[in-house]
């Protein structure tokens, strides 16, 4: 049917099917700014358009309903790619992280300002109430609206600058525009889904309805014969290699326990068969024609069930080790039916008893420590399964170009992706090119190769271009989630609060496959235990296979759960001893110059070593928090008899990449006009890494930000980088960029010295793009020109590699004030302050935004989020209607982030990592504050009203 309407002021007449949504029609016609985050449920608002003057979700409107209407998308805001007032304000207020939500936010703010020129906070909340953003924590949206509102009357208005650092530097420590923000705010093509060409085939996956089953028989003949079907792939015709989907450095500390398709199905949502067809509808229809008979097995649905004697076995294939031997007493012989499991090296595993990996170590004498204690407590804490929920789900587009496989990916790990796909497909790495597009949120889930193996294989096999985008439900059940962890903490202390012994026993649920099975749970220990100085400490970590949704990396990488357990236990001990919880922290915390002995037993992938800490900012952070919360003053009291107020504080830490294991590289080219091109291996996920590498070049070469362009994460063009994980972006990829810039600077000086006939020691780079000596000067443009001429010495290119043995720890102190309703169990977050040290904040407002976003995710995990399963292992809330992530309404009334920098001697310009650590504070701080309010300890997150009432004994 035909439909005519006005789109962004121009009349259009389109042919649409009766069942086509307005969102799909707009995207089909190339309006890329209209996105899809919830598959039409109406929860995400990313498909927003303004219809006859009102913002609405275009997924719940039929295209045909637009007849005669006036429709505006964000494309209407800008003329000739110039940002509108609203878009400019969003960029200036650092609201564009991954940018997947930005066009929708821009429309909501436009509508708000048309209704209210100077909106209140409540009006701002209301305007953005229907738009989900998983990156920003929403707080900076308030500033954006204020800026836009002021510029309506005063176009030149500039908000007062935020905090600035490193007065000696031009760009570093100052806010500069995020390099990709403008394009994202304009809604231009940027993401994988925007790259799909006409004629691409679509993939659809038949998924297991059972948590644990064998495929008895599978018949794809009818599906293969259906119209539009190009290929059907099952365990019978897929490559046989086993691999891990974990995008970690090779050799990975994760077992190779997954085939592209297996005869054994290990979770609801596991792959049964893929259909490649010429349209999504044909692919979906063919899925229905596949006939499968299952032999259903008893599933393993909890850690307790996985451990139980006689438990069903999730992996029963032959176990082998590339290096080393199987632990004594474990069985390695397979059942002859299941896929093999290959460990790159021993992880103290016993897969035939569902133990995917384990580790135990410690320092001192734990028994002696407990014997010396005046008080000993033992408590058990549980963190449930949560989903990363990037607004852009997993998505990939692969095609064959000049005989090579080209993969447009939304990934955190382009090089690991290349390696894993080459292995899975069975081709050499030089046949594969991975182009990391803008990533609409990763948060860890995109550290795994979740769909690129099968898409790469089908593109390679058929020669067709292949597009696959997860539905939101698939994102929940077949992407990656945060491991369930049960942590038992035993603490011994003297009456004055001095710890004498710490024991942490941690059991994790890795789900059906072992990606990150050791490293995530281990990180729960290694980013919590070193915060406390205690001579006797021990940990025991076990990671179990179950038949629940796959676990993997999630921002914080296990640390939030370790932090929850240890920090809450410390507060419980303080309560037991009648001490103030901050006094307890003070008594035991790590401090400047401390020797951290426990790091001996916490080596990541290699033997550890004790470290003597340089300066530690925790004291200053605690002081600032205590002052802001008037900690030593009278307790805050609620004037409402139903509500009680309580406060909590925690200290947190993270790392900055994996010293000794990982490395990053960058290349910087001087172009003919004196501008430069940064080729960074780093994978910017919306975190601002590309801005950081640009800054490094601009700072070191005396340029403006606009003089630097960045290409990143393209395996054909940019040099190797380990990828964006383990908080390594700033420290590793940033440092590689610094080194590339320094290398180019040195080459520029050397070449200029020859041309000017001066001693290199007398030459300096000067702003903007000049080399100045004692006698003369030359511009970078002239230098570049001369270098590339027949008589020159060749193009000037700097190369930087970064690797290190140095561990840089960012620290933080988070303070919370909650109100708890004693009748209903409701928890209200009144105040949340995050004091954090990220070393030199390279781009302060972006760093602050990362922290807001991290904290709000952790608030979501602490109060609302939990994947729920029925008795058959099926997730029953795999959508945004049932699984609630925070909206702008959930942010605390007083939400405050403050940077307390302690420069690191190795970090780029003194910088350290910033975002992951932000997730470690909310759960323990809120739990402690709830106890402070109502006297009940919440030891399982999320702290729902129901759990609060139960803990209070009211239910």
């Amino acid at each position, binding site marked *: 049917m035909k439909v005519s309407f006005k789109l962004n002021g121009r009349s259009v007449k389109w042919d649409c099917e009766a069942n086509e949504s307005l969102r799909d029609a707009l995207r089909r016609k190339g309006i890329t700014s209209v996105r899809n985050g919830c598959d039409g449920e109406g929860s995400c608002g990313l498909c927003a358009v303004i219809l006859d003057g009102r913002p609405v979700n275009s997924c719940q409107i039929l295209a045909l309903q637009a007849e005669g209407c006036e429709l505006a998308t964000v494309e209407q805001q800008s003329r000739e790619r110039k940002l509108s007032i609203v878009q400019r304000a969003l960029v200036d207020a650092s609201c564009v992280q991954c940018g997947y939500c930005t066009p929708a936010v821009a429309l909501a703010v436009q509508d708000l300002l048309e209704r209210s020129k100077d909106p209140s906070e409540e009006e701002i909340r*209301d305007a953005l109430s229907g738009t989900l953003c998983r990156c920003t924590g929403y707080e900076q949206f308030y500033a954006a609206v204020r800026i836009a509102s002021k510029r309506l009357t005063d176009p030149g208005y500039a908000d007062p600058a935020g905090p600035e650092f490193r007065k000696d530097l031009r760009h570093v420590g100052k806010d500069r525009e995020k390099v990709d923000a403008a394009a994202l705010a304009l809604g231009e093509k940027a993401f994988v889904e925007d790259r799909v060409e006409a004629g691409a085939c679509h993939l659809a996956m038949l998924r297991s309805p059972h948590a644990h089953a064998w495929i008895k028989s599978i018949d794809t003949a009818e599906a293969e014969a259906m119209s539009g079907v190009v290929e059907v792939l099952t365990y019978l015709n897929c490559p046989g290699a086993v691999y891990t989907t974990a995008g970690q450095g090779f050799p990975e500390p994760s077992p190779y326990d997954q085939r592209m398709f297996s005869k054994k199905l290990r979770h609801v949502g596991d792959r049964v068969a893929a259909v490649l067809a010429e349209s999504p509808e044909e692919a979906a229809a063919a899925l229905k024609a596949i006939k499968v008979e299952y032999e259903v097995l008893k599933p393993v649905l909890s850690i307790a069930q996985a451990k139980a004697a006689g438990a069903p076995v999730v992996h029963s294939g032959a176990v082998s080790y590339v290096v080393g031997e199987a632990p004594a007493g474990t069985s390695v012989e397979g059942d002859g039916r299941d896929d093999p499991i290959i460990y790159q090296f021993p992880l103290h595993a016993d897969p035939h008893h569902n133990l995917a990996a384990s580790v135990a170590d410690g320092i001192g004498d734990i028994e002696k420590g407990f014997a010396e204690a005046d008080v000993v407590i033992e408590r058990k804490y549980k963190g449930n399964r949560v989903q990363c929920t990037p607004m852009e789900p997993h998505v990939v587009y692969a095609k064959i170009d000049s005989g090579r496989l080209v993969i447009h990916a939304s990934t955190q790990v382009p090089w690991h992706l290349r390696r894993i796909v080459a292995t899975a497909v069975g081709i050499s790495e030089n046949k594969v090119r991975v182009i990391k597009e803008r990533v609409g949120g990763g948060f860890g889930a995109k550290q795994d190769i979740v769909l690129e193996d099968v898409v790469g294989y089908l593109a390679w096999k058929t020669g067709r271009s292949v597009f696959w985008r997860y*539905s939101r439900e698939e994102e929940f059940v077949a992407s990656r989630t945060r491991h369930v962890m049960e942590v038992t903490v035993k603490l011994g202390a003297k009456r004055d609060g001095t710890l004498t012994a710490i024991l942490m026993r941690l059991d994790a649920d890795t789900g059906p496959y072992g990606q990150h099975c050791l490293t995530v749970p281990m990180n729960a220990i290694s980013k919590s235990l070193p915060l406390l100085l205690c001579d006797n400490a021990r940990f025991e970590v076990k990671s179990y296979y179950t038949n629940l949704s796959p676990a993997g990396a999630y921002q914080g990488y296990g640390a939030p759960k370790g932090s929850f357990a240890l920090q809450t236990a410390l507060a419980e001990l303080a309560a037991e001893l009648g001490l103030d919880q901050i006094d307890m922290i003070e008594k035991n915390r790590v401090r400047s110059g401390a020797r951290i002995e426990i790091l001996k037993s916490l080596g990541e992938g290699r033997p550890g070593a004790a470290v003597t800490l340089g300066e530690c900012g925790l004291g200053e952070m605690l002081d600032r928090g205590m002052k802001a919360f008037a900690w030593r003053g009278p307790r805050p009291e609620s004037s*409402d008899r139903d509500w009680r107020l309580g406060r909590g504080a925690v200290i947190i830490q993270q790392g900055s990449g994996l010293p000794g294991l990982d490395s990053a590289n960058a290349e910087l080219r001087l172009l003919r006009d004196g501008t430069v091109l940064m080729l960074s291996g780093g994978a910017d996920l919306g975190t601002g890494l590309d801005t950081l590498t640009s800054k490094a070049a601009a700072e070191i070469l005396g340029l403006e930000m606009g003089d630097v362009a960045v290409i990143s994460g393209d395996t054909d063009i940019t040099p190797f980088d380990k990828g964006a994980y383990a908080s390594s972006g700033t420290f590793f990829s940033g440092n590689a960029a610094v080194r590339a810039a320094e290398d180019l600077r040195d080459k520029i000086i050397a070449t200029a010295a020859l041309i000017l006939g001066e001693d290199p020691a007398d030459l300096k780079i000067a702003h903007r793009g000049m080399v100045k000596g004692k006698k003369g000067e030359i511009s970078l443009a002239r230098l570049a020109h001369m270098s590339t001429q027949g008589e020159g010495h060749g193009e000037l290119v700097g190369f930087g590699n970064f690797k290190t043995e140095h561990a840089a720890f960012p620290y933080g102190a988070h303070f919370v004030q909650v109100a708890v309703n004693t009748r209903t169990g409701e928890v209200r977050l009144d105040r949340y302050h995050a004091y954090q040290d990220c070393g030199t904040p390279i781009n302060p407002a972006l760093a602050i935004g990362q922290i807001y976003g991290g904290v709000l995710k952790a608030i979501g995990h602490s109060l609302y989020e939990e994947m729920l399963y029925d008795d058959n292992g099926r997730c029953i809330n795999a959508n945004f209607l049932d699984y609630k992530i925070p909206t702008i309404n959930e942010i605390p009334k007083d939400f405050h982030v403050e940077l307390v920098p302690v420069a690191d001697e190795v970090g780029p310009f003194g910088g350290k990592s910033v975002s992951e650590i932000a997730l470690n504070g909310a759960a323990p701080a809120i739990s402690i504050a709830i106890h402070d309010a109502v006297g009940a300890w919440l030891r399982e997150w999320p702290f729902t009203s129901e759990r609060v009432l139960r803990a209070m004994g009211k239910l």
Partner: protein
Amino acid sequence: MNGIVDYTRPSSLAEALEQKAANPGAAWLAGGTGILAGDSRPRPAALIDVGRLLPRAIRMADGELLMGAGASFQDIADCDLVPASLREAALTMVNRNTRNRATIGGNLGANKSCASLIPLLLVLDAKLIVEGGKKTRLGAAEWLADRSGLVLEAAIASDPGRRSSYLRWARSSCDLSVLTVAVSCIVTSAGLSSLRIAMGGLASHARRFGELEALFEGMALPPREAIEAASAPLFNPIDDLRASAAFKRLRAATLLADAMHAAAGSALAASSPAATPGVRQ
């Protein structure tokens, strides 16, 4: 989107009703936030788009407040003529984009257990003006029993002295309501009179709770604890992913106590849990 093969946009109400008579399986399409929600959920094969035919105005006529069935939740929230409790109820649909599309008619038509407007329409004794159904004017409860015909308007008679309140419980601001309660009453020196209570989330549809009304009718407003103790045993919710039955029972009782106090204008009502930012309970 699945299913839909036949979409029509009739140019008059008469034509719409003719189309429906010719194809009784076809469904009315108003805002679409219910019937079109979820890309992969099954849809009716035929939709009759009445979105632009339904009256949208909200007005006073002959001592009645008349709200067009096509009025959106946002229209209700924005209109001063509408009782405060109903405006608040509309705003508990926190998502503004959805509020701009979702209509009163659709709220009635979908008749979900936790519909935001239905409990208030029940306790304000709203009458519906209907075309193509069994009657052209009937009570909301009666219409909801079989939902035949197209609702054109909802009418609420002026009832000076009647107070009303609405509260809901949801897990977070943008969650669908798990429990809803609406109360209306006249407060006399003798106590609560003509008390009406409707609740949602406790059965498959929201409904009036005559047994509770009878319990408290004519009494002075009891303390909240007494309301909770008396009402909780009467609730029989089910366990679901949002909460256990035990929690819902307790929470429904606290909601009712708060709503009764709010309606009766008690100072105690100020302590309702509405203090959560943005969550209008």
